[in-house]
């Protein structure tokens, strides 16, 4: 488990990867840019799922904060004329953190399936409220005005590119921040809680408070993912809080693995591409293709796609020795 800081190349590799993705986005067709943008935004939510998974907690309700972030951005734009992306991001964080700070008091008391079900229940409560809220478009949701960027108000392809680049920068910054967090004592405490809660408590840490903190951090990241999705799609609806959306985030977390900060983004990219091409070539059975993909990962790569890197490095070490 000990990761020598000298050997940890995660941040420079991430920087290169995000720079490559941003460069690709600047040259790629619109549909591909959109696909990458959604993958990155979803990757942020999965990052939140991963932070909780490291502490042994599976959230089947991360859609709650994804939806709150989206609706916060959408409502600020539609009802108050606030369109600046940075202000929208701040609002998304504030709303998500405020709700998570309150709900987290209860969530931190539960573990395992009870945590999963309670998180799902909270997200479905929001779904139910939004479906009944006619002022918010009920099941149809409502459109989100075009975002602006510190006074810069692009449209068309320029808007898409600007939003995409902003998504890249934010995802990179958050990935680095969460990477630092997971390598700090508090990050390790998450793994420690998963392994032995009693010892953590007897070392002088409140397990409930540590879980509460992780829950709030996960909510903040997911809220940002929601804001970026709202900006990219230009529309929000209650489906963002529906349990299948949350289930998809867990799906991606399992697909990518929890071994590294890059895993959620890799998982999100793979899911979006598999879904897109499965829908293109097998429109009647695309869900089956996704299911088969998941089954294959669980059977052959229980540690997710990221575990491939460990297998490769072990194979290389064997060759060298």
């Amino acid at each position, binding site marked *: *488990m*000990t*990761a*020598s*800081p000298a050997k940890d190349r995660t941040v420079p590799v991430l920087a290169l990867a995000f720079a490559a993705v941003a460069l690709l986005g600047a040259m790629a067709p619109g549909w591909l840019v959109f696909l990458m943008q959604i993958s990155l935004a979803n990757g942020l939510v999965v990052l939140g799922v991963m932070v909780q998974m490291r502490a042994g907690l599976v959230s089947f309700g991360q859609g709650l904060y994804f939806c709150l972030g989206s609706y916060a951005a959408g409502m600020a734009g539609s009802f108050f004329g606030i369109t600046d992306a940075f202000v929208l991001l701040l609002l998304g964080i504030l709303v998500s953190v405020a709700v998570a700070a309150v709900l987290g008091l209860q969530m931190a008391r539960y573990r395992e399936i009870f945590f999963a079900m309670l998180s799902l229940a909270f997200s479905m409560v929001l779904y139910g409220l939004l479906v009944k809220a006619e002022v918010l478009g009920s099941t149809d949701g409502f459109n989100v005005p075009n975002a602006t960027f510190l006074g810069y108000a692009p449209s068309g392809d320029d808007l898409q590119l600007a939003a995409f680049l902003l998504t890249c920068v934010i995802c990179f910054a958050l990935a680095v921040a969460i990477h*630092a*967090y997971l*390598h*700090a*004592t*508090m*990050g*390790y*405490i998450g*793994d*420690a809680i998963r*392994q*032995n809660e*009693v*010892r*953590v*408590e*007897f*070392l*002088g*840490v*409140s397990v409930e408070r540590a879980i509460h903190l992780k829950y709030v951090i996960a909510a903040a990241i997911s809220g940002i993912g929601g804001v970026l999705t709202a900006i990219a799609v230009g529309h929000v609806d209650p489906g963002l809080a529906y349990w299948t959306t949350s289930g998809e985030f867990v799906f991606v977390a399992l697909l990518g693995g929890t071994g590294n900060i890059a895993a959620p983004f890799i998982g999100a990219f793979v899911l979006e591409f598999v879904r897109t091409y499965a829908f293109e070539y097998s429109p009647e059975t695309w869900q089956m293709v996704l299911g088969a993909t998941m089954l294959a990962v669980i059977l052959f790569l229980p540690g997710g796609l990221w575990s491939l890197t460990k297998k490769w490095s072990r194979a290389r070490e064997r060759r060298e020795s």
Partner: protein
Amino acid sequence: MAVILEARNLQMRFGAVVAVDDINVSVGEGEVIGIIGANGAGKTTFVNMVTGYLTPTSGQIFFEGRDVTALDPRQITRLGICRSFQIAQLFPEFTVLDNVLVALGIAKRRFFRPMVRPDMVTAGLRVLEHYGLSEHAERTVSTLPQGTRKLLDIALATVEDPKIVLLDEPTSGVGVDEKFGLMKTLMAALQNQGATVLYIEHDMDLIERYAHRVIAFYDGKIIADAPPAEAFADDAVREFVIGAELHRQPKTEDYGNGESSASSDSC
């Protein structure tokens, strides 16, 4: 000797069962106290109450004059009362060094700073050295033998110079050939730290060798609280804790009653 820990009229009920009844104990700073008693006598319940794992049904616990009865384990640990467990409580997927680094990071309140830093690693290795665990630093805990796990459990509990350490059967599950070495190592390390030690132990040799004082439990009550020689001579202790027929020869000579050494052989 200043009193560091005091239990007054402690009682712990589990439904109709009274696990600990009217316990009064005063612990002086720097003492090494052996706690003995048969299974179910109330020893671990007493340790659990002192460390906040259980809240007494009635009675009070004072640490350095402060009432700590209602505090939770986290708060009590921060005050300087640390403990180990009958079954070592570790992080099995981490390496031995990472276990210590987590404990050190928490003890030093470095929650948001990188855990694996040169100064922390040096401090962690020093802790492992005190407990003779340096050679296992990079091993994953799940691969360690029982005795090594026990030592690591105690090392985790004591990374930040605790004031009192409560050891719950530190040698249980450890082979006969290992246990004396284990006790020697850990008592030397705890003495270096200047900690007051209370340890539950079933091996009377280990009690005799290290304890300044013995507290004997029977049926939830303290039946003896005295230096080892005196406690072992107590009739109630001999009958309910040690077993009279197992009483050791050197002690019988001390009492001058001329009992045969046959009991020593059987021991």
